[in-house]
């Protein structure tokens, strides 16, 4: 079988503005300091003291480094990998020297030699760069995989054939409506077949959902009622493509289709504290039936959200007595114009 990812991976610096990356750096550096302290000492007490001494010097360097890296992130991201890595190493050495000089003027010469600190800084920085590079290399096939999964989380064949059937029924009686339906269908499939590794915008995703829902409306008529609350939606927010549409498809499949009476799907998208909240709610009657398909779609979306936003995104589903609600939170990142 041909592999999907045949291109050699060029290597990349991590995104220093991602909370997950920052957390990992903090944890790893402190972890190494703790190990170093433990190795140098005979007792637990002594180890803690040792750690405090080390931390007094390392933490300022660490915090300052993270700040500088966050600031320099857009510029670093543009550099080729090796040059970028070189710049980061030099930057770290410079910051270490700076903090050391300041420290020395405060505390005198009781903080060890600068050369030793340089060595520590060099090793630590190199190790972290290699770690993050390997991590993204590991995740990189996953990114290609995510594209495949986006295809797998595809529209239910059930929906496709019923929609085509609905369009066929319109061709003789309402040609205009049939044309619109076919246009909607082709827009939907254009997105499904596109390379979905790139982030889309919330506006595009919402447009896609409207097209999808208008096709469902054709089949289900009065039974499907949709309420949009998107006045405070940030139109330019980045979102992986096909996140909302499969969720709406679930809502129709499990919330509307099984009932003869009409039901309401509620869509609420808003911005709060620099985070985009998406709330989808549909009626749901418990029937003791587990929906394997539903779980797969949810896992797929959760995975793609975390590939793109790491720990800054979340997806939660709540089952109430008569409704089912999905809540997505993603960081508000503006799409590049």
């Amino acid at each position, binding site marked *: 079988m041909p592999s999907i990812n045949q291109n050699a991976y060029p290597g990349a610096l991590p995104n220093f503005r991602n909370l997950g990356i920052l957390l990992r750096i903090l944890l790893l550096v402190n972890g190494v300091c703790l190990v170093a302290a433990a190795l140098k000492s005979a007792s637990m007490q002594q180890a803690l003291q040792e750690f405090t001494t080390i931390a007094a010097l390392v933490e300022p360097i660490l915090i300052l480094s993270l700040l500088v890296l966050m600031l320099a992130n857009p510029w670093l991201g543009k550099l080729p990998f090796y040059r970028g890595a070189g710049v980061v190493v030099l930057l770290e050495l410079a910051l270490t020297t700076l903090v050391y000089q300041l420290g020395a003027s405060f505390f005198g010469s009781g903080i060890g030699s600068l050369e030793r600190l340089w060595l520590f800084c060099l090793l630590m920085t190199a190790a972290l760069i290699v770690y993050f590079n390997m991590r993204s290399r590991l995740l990189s096939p996953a990114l290609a995989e995510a594209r495949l999964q986006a295809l797998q989380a595809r529209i239910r064949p059930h929906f496709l054939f019923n929609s085509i*059937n609905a369009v066929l029924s319109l061709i003789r009686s309402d040609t205009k409506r049939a044309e619109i339906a076919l246009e909607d269908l082709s827009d939907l499939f254009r997105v499904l077949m596109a390379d979905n590794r790139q982030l889309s915008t919330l506006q595009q995703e919402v447009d896609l959902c409207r097209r999808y829902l208008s096709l469902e409306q054709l089949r289900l008529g009065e039974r499907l009622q949709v309420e949009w609350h998107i006045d405070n939606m940030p139109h330019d927010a980045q979102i992986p493509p096909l996140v909302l549409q499969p969720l709406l498809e679930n809502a129709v499949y499990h919330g509307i289709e099984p*009932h*003869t009476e009409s039901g309401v799907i509620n869509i609420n998208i808003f911005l709060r504290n620099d985070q985009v909240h998406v709330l989808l709610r549909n009626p749901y009657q418990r029937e003791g039936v587990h929906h394997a398909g539903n779980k797969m779609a949810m896992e797929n979306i959760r995975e793609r959200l975390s590939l793109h936003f790491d720990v800054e995104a979340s997806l939660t589903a709540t089952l109430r007595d008569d409704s089912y609600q999905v809540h997505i939170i993603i960081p508000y990142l503006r799409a590049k114009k």
Partner: protein
Amino acid sequence: MTSPLRIMIVDDEAPARNRLKELLADCAASFPHEVVGEAANGREALDLMSREPADLLLLDIRMPEMDGIEVARHLLGLPQMPAVIFTTAYDVYAIEAFEVNAVDYLMKPVRGERLLGALQKARQNRPPGPEQLQKLAQRPRTCLSVQERGKIVLIPVSEVIYLKAELKYVTIRTLEREYLLEESLTNLEQEFMANFIRIHRNCLVAKASITGFEKVAEEGEEAHWEVVLKGVEEKLPLSRRQQYLVKEFAK
């Protein structure tokens, strides 16, 4: 010359019904028939059948509340089971079962010539029997059905308090009244075991209807347990073998 075939279309989606009507109209020249009714769900279809009996039903499988297979199972109660052609857009499991059990079906979107072919066969083919339909069923029925004066009466399973085997029949007890059903208790137990429990060799009780158990001791007899039910005065004996239920219920 036989009289034109009376056809009923059953599908929850209006466009799908329209499409079938158009295709049937196209077939009219080579296959004389009459569309006697349309129904948007299973109940409507069964209702309509008792007023406007049809010879053939075009029956969608996936419909809200009562699916097409269940509709066909209730139709079995009619004096004359009509011919049935199932329709489906996409349902891997159903299609496999249809192939295995040699039951006729059409895939939506339906082609004119396929429809014509199925209509021509329908007169000769025997309608599916109870065993065949039972094999096709993917889930328990939502209703039980009995025949009263040529009409199909549906009894929602959720309203059934208990099912009791008596000689040839099974008595269905609801809050209002009793019905007689011609099915075996063993089959019913298998189908509805998620919500019903056997309390005695001849009796299944809806778990939701059990409110408690009472120990009864009559003179000269060994004490035994009885099941107390919600909404009805009557109490049902619990067999010795099922006494563990008392403990389970207490939990």
